[in-house]
């Protein structure tokens, strides 16, 4: 009886059924598109960071007071090693501001070695004066390559230095850093090394080699592949992206789209019951009918969202995440619909009959 009535209920309102499916497809498709876009963005950055960070390793050693424990001279000297493409070391940073960009805060980072090569394999810079600033940050504050920039230091003094604009793609996500060369003296907190491709067979060998190369017997040095720290940061971004709850919003909106017309048709629930149908079979008729609409609407929505995304991004993005998004949205919608239909079917048949008399 239930399936028969489901078919009749849907067939009796063909136009409304089509409109509901179309509206749901637009709604859920939009949600799926936004979610997939944000994931795509992060994953694309991740892929870029991973490929850029290949062969790059990060050594870190700092005391309890935050001071560095890696010999600056040892780190800088790695640049002469035939297995190393580039090596650069970072001292602790100072908080500064740029006079022409009030309200923005930057970190002034003294470095030794070949920092531009570490920031990006595409950089080629012979400058050892001034400071290096990441390209997008420079564009935001209106600084061009070669500009003389006034920097207010943390002690209040103002220095003028030449800005060199570079790419920074190797997980140096903190684009508020201004890198500036200094003499290789003292101790560093971090040393970055890019090996010549093929120089190390695997991460284990690279980590061991670098640990030994920087070990001066004073401290324990931790060495990690650059890609791991990149992946960790991007995973955090992925998990905290603003669209991560869009599946719930999409499911709730789809539920409202389907349930509100049912509220205006709630007399049908009482009518079925007054003709001898039980509460559960009555609820089941509408649950099954609207579940079919939910699946259809979500399926069409997901399809058009993926097509649009492929056209915009010029690539076929992995569908698994979007399929899971659609499943979560559907389940939300169906769960809410089930609860709603159960409530409507429990409505008082006696009250309905009383109203008709």
């Amino acid at each position, binding site marked *: 009886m239930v399936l028969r009535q489901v078919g*009749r209920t849907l067939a009796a309102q063909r136009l409304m059924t089509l409109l509901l499916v179309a509206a749901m497809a637009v709604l859920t498709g939009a949600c799926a598109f936004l979610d997939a876009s944000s994931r795509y963005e992060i994953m694309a950055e991740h892929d870029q960071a991973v490929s850029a960070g290949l062969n790059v390793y990060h050594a870190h050693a700092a005391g309890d007071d935050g001071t560095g424990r890696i010999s600056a001279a040892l780190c800088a000297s790695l640049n002469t090693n035939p297995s190393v493409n580039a090596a650069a070391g970072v001292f602790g940073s100072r908080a500064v501001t740029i006079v022409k960009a009030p309200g923005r805060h930057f970190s002034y980072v003294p470095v030794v070695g070949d920092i531009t090569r570490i920031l990006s394999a595409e950089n080629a810079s012979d400058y050892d004066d001034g400071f290096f600033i990441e390209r997008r940050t420079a564009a935001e504050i209106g600084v061009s390559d070669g500009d003389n920039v006034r920097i207010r230091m943390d002690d209040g003094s103002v220095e003028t230095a030449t800005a060199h604009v570079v790419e920074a793609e190797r997980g140096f996500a903190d684009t508020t850093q201004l890198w500036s060369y200094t003499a290789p003296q003292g101790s560093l907190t971090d040393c970055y090394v890019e090996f010549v491709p093929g120089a190390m067979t695997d991460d284990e060998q690279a980590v061991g080699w670098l640990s030994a190369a920087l070990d001066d017997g004073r401290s324990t040095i931790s060495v990690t592949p650059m890609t791991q720290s990149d992946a960790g940061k991007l995973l955090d971004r992925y998990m905290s992206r603003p669209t991560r709850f869009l599946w719930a919003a999409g499911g709730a909106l789809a539920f409202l789209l389907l349930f509100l017309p049912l509220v205006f048709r709630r007399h049908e629930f009482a009518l*079925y*019951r007054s*003709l*001898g*149908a039980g509460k559960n079979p009555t609820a089941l008729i509408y649950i099954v009918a609207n579940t079919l609409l939910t699946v259809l609407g979500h399926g069409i929505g997901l399809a058009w969202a993926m097509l649009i995304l492929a056209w915009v991004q010029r690539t076929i993005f992995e569908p698994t995440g979007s399929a899971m998004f659609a499943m979560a949205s559907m389940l939300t919608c169906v769960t809410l619909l089930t609860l709603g239909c159960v409530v409507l079917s429990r409505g008082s048949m*006696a009250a309905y009959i009383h109203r*008709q*008399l």
Partner: protein
Amino acid sequence: MPIEMIDVRFRYSPLGPAVLDGVTLTIPDGQMIALVGPSGSGKTTLLQIIGGILKPSEGVVRCDTSIGRMRWIFQTPMLLARQTVRQNIDIAISTAPWNARTREARVQEMLADVGLDGYADHRVNTLSGGQQQRVQIARALACRPPVVLADEPTGQLDHATTTLVMNAIAKARGHGTTMVIVTHDEYVASYCERVVRLEDGRIHSVKGGDAHRMDDCDMVAEASDE
């Protein structure tokens, strides 16, 4: 088992007026009775008490048929407007243990009884008021319910259509279905085996029915005449 009401009284609120004030009535199985009377006499309230929609404030109501097995015929046809005549009737018999062929045969039989042969595939919202009412009647009687309660089934119809509808009820009812019809129309009441007249919440008179049986109300009416 007949429907029995013993000294039934009803008020919508404890301090409100008595809508029913001591009604005693027995409706034998399979009888078609009419409840007539002026507006406010308590006809519809009595119908709702028989149907289990309202509980009496005082008195006893005995009826073997549960509310779920009773069928109603409303003044305004309550049908699924966008579905066909066949589908509307089929809903009522879908819970019966009949196969598809038996159900279809029953649908056609009911349509013939109410004079709507050939209308099975018409959408209900394309029918006239009288035709829709006949569909409602066919739906109510299709599963051979033990009790059918009708509230002014011809209230919105003209005389010719009223005749059609009452003929349909008489034909489709068959035997064994107890039918209680609330009406203010004496013509409709004339189709019934017994006519119970209510006034001010009490039974004023009862006409027709089994000559060898007398309800208490008949005796009361006779006594008052005396």
